[in-house]
């Protein structure tokens, strides 16, 4: 019993999960049952994958001990690249491939500059935040291009499932979440990510290629952000150069609320998803409860600090529970 209790206290995503359940109950009551009805859930689940995918990338990168502020800009640059290519006649698959390659290149530059010049990723990716946003506007020429009509939007944004509950994007999100989660928990590469972020000197002295591990995480993070941006473009039907602004900080907040440590080594994909869901739930729940929507950012800010304090406290409690022998 004691061991069970201890094991659960050590789970980094626990605080977020408890808060999520509490808030869902509160909003359900405050909104007179509207919150959990089918239409509202459908709306929430429809946009969750977009921030969720970004949060997954940011969480994994954070576990490896690094940080990415450029995800919001990459979120806009990738669909804009695709749109411009498609306007010039490129077919969708080719444009998708090119867009993902641009993301990979940005992730690679972020990682390469951070690692080889030994500068904080905060600085590198802050620079990239401006660079990628600027590129987005430059390639669009100031006017968002018109998307061709025959795009395979069904593959990403159509409603599917019982009662048309989910968009296709949710299936992509769920699939990627399961895969990345398994990668972290059940592969040697996941072990290396945690070791690299957990204590770099130990990982290096045990022969783990820490530079390549981090680089891979940077690339993954950028590609997931770009992919998420493309889904939003297909949902909105237009590549707006301003999408994803402020998303980088929401994604960091989601990761942290989900228990990821800014110092690296601790965190889970599930935690990042719980954090994202929590943010979406607050956004939606405040409106339904007829609270002034300007309290949204206040709530996110408060929650971020609260979750980190709660996590630190629980970890300390867990440590204090001494097991025999």
């Amino acid at each position, binding site marked *: 019993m004691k061991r069970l209790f201890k094991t659960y206290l*050590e789970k980094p995503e626990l605080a977020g999960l408890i808060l999520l359940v509490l808030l869902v109950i509160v909003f359900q009551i405050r909104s007179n049952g509207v919150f959990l009805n089918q239409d509202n859930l459908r709306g929430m689940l429809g946009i969750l994958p977009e921030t969720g995918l970004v949060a997954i990338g940011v969480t994994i990168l954070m576990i490896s001990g690094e940080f990415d502020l450029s995800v919001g800009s990459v979120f806009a640059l990738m669909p804009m690249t695709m749109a411009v290519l498609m306007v010039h006649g490129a077919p969708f698959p080719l444009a998708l491939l090119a867009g993902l390659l641009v993301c990979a290149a940005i992730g690679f530059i972020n990682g390469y500059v951070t690692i080889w010049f030994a500068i904080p990723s905060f600085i590198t990716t802050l620079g990239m935040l401006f660079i990628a946003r600027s590129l987005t506007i430059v390639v669009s020429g100031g006017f968002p291009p018109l998307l061709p009509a025959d795009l395979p939007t069904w593959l990403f944004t159509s409603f599917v499932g019982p009662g048309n509950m989910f968009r296709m994007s949710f299936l992509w999100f769920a699939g990627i979440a399961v895969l990345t989660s398994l990668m972290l928990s*059940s*592969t*040697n*590469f*996941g*072990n*290396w990510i*945690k*070791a690299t972020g*957990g*204590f770099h*000197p*130990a*990982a*290096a*002295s*045990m*022969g*783990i290629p820490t530079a390549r591990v981090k680089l891979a995480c940077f690339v993954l993070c950028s590609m997931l952000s770009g992919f998420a941006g493309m889904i939003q473009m297909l949902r909105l039907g237009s590549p707006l150069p301003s999408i994803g602004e402020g998303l980088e900080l929401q994604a960091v907040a989601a990761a942290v609320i989900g228990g990821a*440590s800014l110092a690296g*080594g*601790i965190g889970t994909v599930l935690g990042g998803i719980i954090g994202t869901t929590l943010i979406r739930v607050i956004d939606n729940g405040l409106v339904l409860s007829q609270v002034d929507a300007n309290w949204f950012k206040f709530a996110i800010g408060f929650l971020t600090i609260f979750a980190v304090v709660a996590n630190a406290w629980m970890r300390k409690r867990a*440590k204090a529970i001494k*097991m*025999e*022998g």
Partner: protein
Amino acid sequence: MSDAIIAVRDVHKWYSGVHALKGITLDFKRGEALGLVGDNGAGKSTLINILSGVQRADQGEILVEGKPVRIARPRDAMDLGIETIYQYNSMVPTMSIARNLFIGREPLRFSVGGIGILDQAKMRSESIRAIADVDLHLRSPDALVGELSGGQRQGVAIARAMHFKSKVMILDEPTNHLSVKETKKVIGFVRSLKEQGITCVFISHNMYHVFECCDRVVAMARGEVVLDKRIEDTSIDEVAGIL
């Protein structure tokens, strides 16, 4: 000569103009516990870093079991059977004992290009055995290393090295910052290594610890070996006098 598991031949190292190692020649004999002592800056750490692949020698040769080798990375040293255990540097505190035991050498159920699915059942069962083999009593291989005491961490690091059949174990200041009781435990580990025929290099500031568990003592000063004697042929006073 033939019983030297590692032979260091005329190894030099410069750091931006400072001659840190001035032609070290030293044999590490098979099955021997060698105590390496010396003041800060004497070159002990440099020599060990070269043997463990953290740094590279500028000049000279290293032979392992009679064959010249190139140790460019930590992994090279590990593949040659040389395992280095640092005071705090060899464990990730946020990970479990089982995961720490196999960092970088995870057993895989299948893999593509070196990346694959962990065999977690094997990791658990083998880490339980590895820990029991060094007579360490820990509640579970799932406990986080961050919750272990300094001595227990050394124990786990030694268990890891033994599990991977290391031939030479280098312990860098393993008794630093440890309580008297914990220190005894670590010295016990070194003795049991010797019983199992594993060559052991024990680096310490504390002469008493070296004399308690080693067969031979090598003292370094200013990048050179200044004393190399069997424990029974020397005394703490003589070694301290030379340093």
